[in-house]
C-alpha cells in the first residue's frame, strides 16, 4: 500500500436517480399564490409573528400556523453576495448572480432562504456595488408564465 507516482487508474461514476418530494398542503398553497402574483405568509397566534415562506407550524412556538395573510411585495435587503464563478452544475452562461435575503415589509423574518436581485446590467460590478446595498429597498418582478414555484419571481428590482 505505497503511493504510486504515476496517475492511478480510476473508475468514473455518475449517478442519476429520480425522486419525488411532497410539497405538502402549506407549501402547495404558498406556491399557488405565486401563480396569482401573491406572496402568502402564515401568522402564529401565539407569538404573533408572520413568516414567509408560509409554515405549517411556528418553528419557535411549535404550534400549528393556520392563519394565512397576504404580505407586501416590497422590502429591504438584509445581506447579499455576488456569485461569479463556475462549478459542476453552474456554467459560464449562468453567472453572475446576486443572491440576497430580503425582509418584506410587515414580515418577521427574511424571505425564505434567498432570492435574486436583477433588472439592470449585473455584469457591471461597479454598478452593482453602487445599487445593491444592505438596507436597499426592493420590489418583486414576476414572470409572465408562472408555474407555481420559486422561480415565478423573476428577480427583485432595486427601488431607486
Amino acid at each position: 500500500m505505497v503511493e504510486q507516482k504515476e496517475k492511478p487508474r480510476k473508475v468514473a461514476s455518475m449517478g442519476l436517480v429520480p425522486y419525488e418530494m411532497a410539497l405538502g398542503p402549506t407549501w402547495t398553497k404558498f406556491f399557488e399564490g405565486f401563480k396569482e402574483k401573491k406572496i402568502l405568509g402564515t401568522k402564529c397566534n401565539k407569538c404573533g409573528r408572520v413568516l414567509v415562506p408560509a409554515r405549517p407550524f411556528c418553528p419557535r412556538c411549535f404550534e400549528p400556523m393556520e392563519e394565512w395573510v397576504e404580505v407586501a411585495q416590497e422590502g429591504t435587503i438584509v445581506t447579499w453576495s455576488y456569485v461569479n464563478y463556475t462549478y459542476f452544475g453552474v456554467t459560464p452562461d449562468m453567472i453572475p448572480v446576486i443572491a440576497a435575503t430580503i425582509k418584506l415589509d410587515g414580515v418577521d423574518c427574511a424571505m425564505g432562504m434567498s432570492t435574486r436581485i436583477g433588472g439592470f446590467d449585473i455584469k457591471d460590478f461597479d454598478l452593482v456595488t453602487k445599487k445593491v446595498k444592505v438596507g436597499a429597498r426592493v420590489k418583486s418582478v414576476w414572470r409572465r408564465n408562472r408555474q407555481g414555484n420559486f422561480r415565478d419571481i423573476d428577480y427583485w428590482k432595486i427601488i431607486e
Partner: protein
Amino acid sequence: MQKVGIVEVAQSAGTESSLSLMEFTYKPVKEVLDKVGMKRDEVDTYILASTDVFHSGMSCANAFDWDAAGAFMKPASREEGDAITAFVYGCMRIMSGEHDTALVVGLIKGSENPENDTLTSFVADPFYSRPVGIQETTAAAMQMRLYLQRYGITEEQCAKVVAKNLGNALFNPYAHIKKRVSVDDVLNSERICDPLKALECAPKSEGVCAMLLASEEKAKKLTDKPVWFKGWGSSMDTFYLGDRDLLDTQLKTAAASAYKMAGVSDPRKEIDVAEICEPYAFQELLWCEQLGFCAQGQGGKLIDSGVTQITGALPVNPSGGVLAMNPYVARGLYRVAEGALQIKGKAGEHQLDKKVNTALAHSTYGFCGQWQGVVILGS
C-alpha cells in the same frame, strides 16, 4: 462518571492519494493499532464518521468503511454529520462503563468527488433554496457581508487569517495546502463570491483520522501521556438563513455547555490552544468572538493583536486549520487530534513553544455554521 483518555492518534495527509478508499483508510487505523500494540478485535467498540453519498459518491459505506477500519463483528456505528461527534459518541460508550476501548475513525477522499459547492447545493432544501442556486459558499458570503458591515471588520483582517493559517500549515506534514501567501495575495485573489475571495475558501482534501480512546485505567496502561476528555457542548440552529441572525450562531450555546462541563470560567486565559473549523477565513474571527476569546465585533482586533499567532498567547489553528486541510466530515476529528498532539507535546514542527494543558477543538457544518460543536481536552 468514567474518565476517558485519548491514547493515540494517526492522520493521513490531505493531498490526492493514489490509494483506494479501502487502502487509504486502512493505513492510519493500522498505524494507531500498531503504535498501541493492539489487534483490531481487541478494541471493544468502533465509531466511524463518513458521508457515503454526495461527499464520496460510492453510496456504500457498508461495503468499505467497516472492513477498512477493522470494525466488523464489533459494536460499531457510523455518523454522517461531523466526526467530532463520532469522537464524543466514542467517549460516551466508555463513560457508560460498557466498553474500555473505542476506536474512532473519520474518513473521506475529497479528490474523488466534484466541487464542494456542487455537493453543498444538495444540502439546500429542494423547494426554496436549491432552485435559486444557494450553497455553502453563497451563504457564507452573505454572512461575511453582514459581518463586515455590522462591526466594521475589514477585508484585510479576514485575509490575515489565511496568511496566518497557511503559514502554520507549512510546518504540519498532514496539511493539504502548502504555500506561503501574503495578505495582498489573498485580497488580490479572484472575487468568486463577493465579498469572499478564492483564497479565503477552504480546499477539499483527502483525510483519514484514527483515534484510540480508553477508560482511565486502560489509558494509563496504554500510554505514558493520556489526554483527557474534559468537556463537550453542541447546538443546532434552524435552517432558513432568513430566520436567523447570521452573526449570532449557536456556537455561543455550544461553547457555554463545554466550558461548564470542563470547569472553564475564563476561556481567553484558560485555553492554551484552539483548533477551530474555519472553512471561510472570516469565520475564524467570528467563531473566536463566539467562543469568548474576545468581545462581540472584536474579532478583527483580535487577529491584529497577534494573540492568535502560533507564538501568541492563544494560538488559533497552529495546524493550519481547515483553510489548509478540509476533509469534509473528518475535519472535526482532525481538530481533536491536533489538540491532543499539542497537549502530548507530539505535534512536531508546529508544536507550541509553551506548556499546553488545555486545548479547545471546534467543528461546524451546515450553512453559516448551522451546527456547532466544542470539545475541551486536558492534560
